[in-house]
């Protein structure tokens, strides 16, 4: 990262090599991880909104005095904007800062519901570290309940924007500011309680961090911090980067709609240059910012947030998945990457007041974007694509005249890997859970007629993509369907000869005479009592040539209903026949069919298969 003048302290360029006690280092690292977990537990225990409590949508961060993130199980916000506006020498013990403004937080907050608390840690009267927590709060005002209007074109429709402010001054809350915050949400009590939970948890974490400084002294603790950051940097430099040949690689991927204008390809472009121990990510070529709310303001603080968000993708280059899981990504990774942003006015460099609440489409796509670029550099030795977050649900009035709203995040299949098929029906947020059918039926006037995996939804491949859901809901009253989803037209891409997975689809009256497919951003499609809505979620992309998949595996897939007999023949070239009532592979016919299918191909299959949806949409461009 370049070290141009920054409105926050930057670490000295040349640090004198410090001798770090290996024992204290281990204790400090273990305790940092524990403090992070303790803050999370405290929030989980005392927060109130379902998004935090049940969907686990909150993140904690521990930072050193230079705003460098020290832990790495997850991404988090960043304290730079707070330090920019309130220099550390002016901070006092007991101060707590609050912010959620997507344009004034140095790229650390992507949409307004993510309200973030920051607490400085003091040692010998100076600020030595920061503790931060943000949660996805249920409502911070704006045009619609939940503060995520899919058709917003400005931030003013999305809710209350708070640049960094000092919410607590030496332990005393600024009640005037707090009144404004509470007045601008539909759920004042819940929001107040959630903020309280986050603030108290951060204060507890700050005390724990201060104890670490007291116990071992600032010099020792900070030398340990540096060693922890260096460790992450060196794993990237010495272990992961050498797997990528020096050179320049390019790829692009697309979001397909912005909620306001007609569906089209919104391009994200990435040129990656790898040279020695550095990688440069250049996003020039990315499409202009959208009218609707899919913009992601990422071009701040030298892209520190973006780097920490997408760099973990490179863990897939580790020699085994077990090793990948061991690699924690902290600020040390920012020394490996440089980011070049396009000029202002693109999807990732939007200009205020462009709306951002559905920036998760772009955020999630950026993971697959980097994976796709890297794949070209490593002969496809990366996972194929996945898309595992979207909202579907129903609202209306039940038989007792009470209004109801049922919203659920249904995951999807993950992409095939060179070592394994993709996972069926998973969700990227750790420990986030789906709704049991028995819960749904107890609570809402629907019957879950089917909770299954969608046959053939996983992209065909040597290692098949994971399957998406097929869920059928029968309405018991007249109500409305809501959908917020990307990848309705473009499937998750297949890699290295693997095919794209099937896209997302919601169909109203799916089993009736006039089934109707819906789009990806739908706010209230009418649904009649007794009819069935079918939700099919994305399958993961396949990995490798499906004609090389072991026929025995295809047989198991067919027996388990994951692949149809037709797809076994057409996509995998596997011929099955009944023997003594059981299906078996016809080896001879399979070999012949595979030869014929391979012969019909024109040249080598592409490294990346975007599926049939892409061609249709590309023609509209």
């Amino acid at each position, binding site marked *: 990262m370049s070290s141009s003048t920054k409105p926050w302290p930057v670490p000295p360029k040349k640090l004198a090599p410090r001798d770090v006690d290996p024992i204290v280092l281990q204790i400090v690292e273990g305790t940092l991880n524990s403090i992070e977990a303790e803050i999370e537990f405290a929030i989980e225990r005392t927060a109130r909104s379902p998004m935090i409590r049940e969907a686990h949508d909150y993140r904690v961060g521990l930072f050193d005095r230079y705003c460098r993130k020290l832990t790495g199980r997850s991404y988090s916000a960043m304290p730079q904007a707070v330090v920019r506006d309130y220099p550390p020498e002016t901070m006092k013990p007991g101060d707590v800062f609050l912010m959620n403004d997507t344009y004034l937080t140095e790229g650390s907050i992507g949409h307004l519901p993510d309200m973030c608390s920051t607490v400085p840690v003091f040692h010998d009267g100076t600020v030595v570290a920061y503790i931060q927590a943000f949660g996805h709060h249920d409502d911070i005002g704006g045009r619609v309940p939940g503060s995520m209007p899919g058709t917003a074109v400005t931030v003013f429709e999305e809710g209350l924007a708070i640049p960094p402010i000092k919410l607590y001054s030496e332990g005393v809350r600024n009640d005037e500011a707090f009144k404004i915050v509470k007045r601008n949400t539909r759920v004042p009590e819940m929001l107040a309680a959630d903020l309280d939970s986050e603030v108290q948890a951060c204060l507890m974490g700050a005390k724990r961090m201060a104890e670490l400084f007291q116990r071992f002294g600032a010099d020792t603790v900070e030398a340990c911090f540096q060693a922890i950051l260096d460790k992450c940097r*060196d794993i990237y430099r010495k272990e992961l980067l050498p797997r990528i040949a020096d050179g320049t690689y390019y790829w692009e991927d697309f979001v397909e709609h912005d909620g306001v204008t007609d569906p089209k390809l919104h391009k994200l472009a990435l040129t990656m240059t790898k040279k020695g121990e550095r990688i440069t990510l250049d996003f020039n070529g990315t499409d202009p910012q959208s009218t609707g709310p899919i913009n992601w303001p990422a071009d701040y603080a030298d892209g520190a947030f973006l780097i920490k968000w997408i760099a973990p993708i490179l863990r897939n280059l580790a020699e085994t998945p077990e090793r990948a899981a061991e690699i924690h990504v902290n600020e040390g990774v920012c020394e490996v990457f440089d980011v070049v942003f396009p000029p202002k006015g693109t999807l990732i460099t939007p200009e205020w007041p462009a709306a951002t609440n559905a920036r998760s489409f772009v955020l999630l796509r950026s993971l697959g974007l980097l994976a796709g670029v890297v794949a070209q550099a490593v002969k496809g030795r990366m996972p194929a694509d996945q898309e595992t977050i979207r909202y579907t649900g129903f609202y209306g009035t039940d038989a007792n005249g009470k209004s109801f709203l049922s919203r659920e995040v249904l995951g999807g299949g993950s992409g095939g890997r060179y070592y394994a098929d993709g996972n069926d029906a998973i969700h990227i947020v750790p420990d986030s859970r789906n709704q049991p059918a*028995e819960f749904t*039926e107890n609570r809402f006037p629907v019957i879950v007629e089917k909770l299954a995996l969608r046959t053939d939804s996983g992209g065909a491949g040597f290692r098949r993509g994971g399957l998406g859901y097929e869920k059928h809901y029968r309405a018991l009253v007249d109500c409305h369907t809501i959908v917020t989803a990307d990848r309705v037209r473009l499937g998750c891409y297949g890699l290295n000869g693997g095919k794209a997975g099937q896209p997302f689809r919601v169909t109203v009256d799916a089993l009736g005479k006039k089934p109707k497919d819906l789009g990806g951003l739908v706010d209230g499609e009418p649904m009649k009592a007794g009819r069935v809505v079918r939700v099919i979620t994305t399958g993961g992309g396949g990995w490798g040539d499906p004609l090389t998949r072991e026929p025995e595996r295809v047989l198991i897939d067919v027996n388990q*209903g994951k692949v149809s007999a037709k797809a076994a023949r057409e996509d995998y070239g596997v011929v099955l026949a009944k023997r003594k009532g059981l299906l078996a592979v016809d080896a001879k016919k399979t070999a012949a069919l595979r030869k014929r299918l391979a012969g019909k191909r024109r040249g080598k299959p592409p490294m990346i298969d975007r599926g049939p949806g892409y061609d249709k949409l590309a023609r509209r461009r």
Partner: protein
Amino acid sequence: MTTIARPASLRIGIDTGGTFTDIVSVDGASGAMRVTKVASTPSNPAIGLVRGVKQVLEQGGASIDQVVGLAHGTTVATNALLQGEIDSLGLIVTEGFRHILEIARQSVPEGYGNSYFWVKPERIVPLDLVREVGGRLNFQGKELRKLEEKSAREAARYFKQRGIRAIGVCLIHSYANDRHERRVAEILKKEYPECTVSLSCDVLPEYREYERAVTTLVDAFVKPHMERYLKRIHDELGPGLREKPFLVMQSSGGVMSAEQIVHKPITTALSGPAAGALGSAVVARIAGFDSVVTLDAGGTSTDLCLIEDGKPHVTNGGSVGPFPVRIPMISIETIGTGGGSIAWVSREGHLRVGPRSAGAEPGPMCYPKGGNEPTITDANLVLGRLPPALIGGGIALNVERSRTGLAALAEKLGRKMSAEALAEGIIEIANWNQANCIRQMTIQRGIDPRDFALLSFGGAGPAQSAAVMDLLSMKACIVPPNPGNLSAFGLLAVDWRTDHITTKVMHEDTVDLKTVASLYAGLERDATETLRRDGIDASHIRLVREADIRYAGQSMEVRVTAPGGTVDKTFFARLADAFHAAHRRTFGYDYKGEQKIELVNLSVSGFGVIDRPTLPRLEMRDGVTPARKAVRPVWFAGAFRDTAVYDRATLPPGWRFEGPVIVEEFGSTSVVFPGQTLEVDPHGILVIRRAGAARLEVVR
């Protein structure tokens, strides 16, 4: 030897572990306790069990006639599940739900981005052994579509054809109406009489179909294992002993007779650590501490359990290995540091301790035929904290090998560091790991560790626990007598217990008290009948009502104790108050007066109350100074200090000593650090406290 005929009063607890089987006998009349240990016999654990029982009787000069009963803790169910090849298990579900196990709850464990490389483990039943049956109930138990008996018959034949003998049945909303499941069971028995069936309405009549299905399958899987095991014990016990009541420990912290356990063996799934926790609770209370964290450090890992007001925390959200098992179980956290944990250098050049372990084989470097990497035990040995021979002098330890290993590790770290300094650091890292884990456990439950004492047992605990106590500013560190046999002792401190649950979601505004009353009455009848079948006298039966309640709109419930007696408006008001209070205690807030509540599950636990064993008070011997066993140099804070070593058996009650001091006994060594005091309580329990040493202030 002739024995005088005495009334039967001897109760025997047997805890079968991987290496040793521990046996404790307590004379109910005198309180006299006897302990012994025999080698476990993994190929047929019943042999070791019976050998141990006979040995403890012989040592006490007692006859079979004096035995009133046996209580057994076993990991047969868990081991079968964790090690066994699950190859003969089938599942029957409602039409449309065949992928229930594949989908699970869609969650990926741990960090962000892991969904790219995580590989979903194999399901407990492969998809081709999951069969659907037609027919549907709604959440109130009303039939929407009739059971399609034909599909059930087809499923039975399908399993029969493939030789799948253990079958779980989990139909949607069967907790609200068991008729479809019971009919499926009848059809299975008729078509395929050799199969074993577990019904979800029996195993866990509670909503959430995925968890209920897995719990039912685990039950179906362990059933044949448990039947075979208990039959072998019956055979081995022989005439005389086999007629005595034989009780088996359950994960919930209660016992049930072997005859009843075979019908629902899943209740024993995690019973091993439960007995230790219960034994700890009894000892801690005797020592005057109602709230303790128990720390059981073995060779490869350490089990931690919170005991508040004498009661271990019980969870119904536990799991066995990768399988969620939603039955009540004592809540145990396990961390990967134990005596055999290896100190090693990671590929980044950092020092790490555990989770890799040398276990019992090859074991620490100092063991005969020990491994080639230094462990925590090697570190303690080099520091002089362990005696040069283990288990009462039986196994000689090679301290030179340990020192060489540590010196080599220091070199690998590129440090000029003595083997002792590195050893002290390794112990320090392990202590911080344990302290951090205890902190996380307490914070999750809104508890301050400073209000708790630390009770340490297991072979590798007491050598370090007093230091962990200091890191957390806990009240004291307690080492019970016979710390290696606490689980077997715990088995004798346990009431009979049977748990019964049902789901019925009722909103505060529309709750029908008559329904609540009749549901509780039914559960209470079931609990009483179960206990009566074990011969418990009505006067010894205690029934506890509980309810899982949530605020309408939440999806997480809090379990609270419900009032006994008539179910009327007062009952409901008290129940609601109990919920608000429990919610505040658990989460730090409540919505009393603001939000309506919803009853979700009603449950009844029946207890057959026993007379708890107690530790006999030892004779006070004022002014007696015990004889030192030895003085040896022990390393504390960077230097060796000559330190007194005592044999625990010689320590008189009431004795006090300033640390540092080492107390040795069979199978365990306690270390009292400088700045700490040791006191022997009237029952021989060691109580270590800090004596005002400078330490961290612990903040929650």
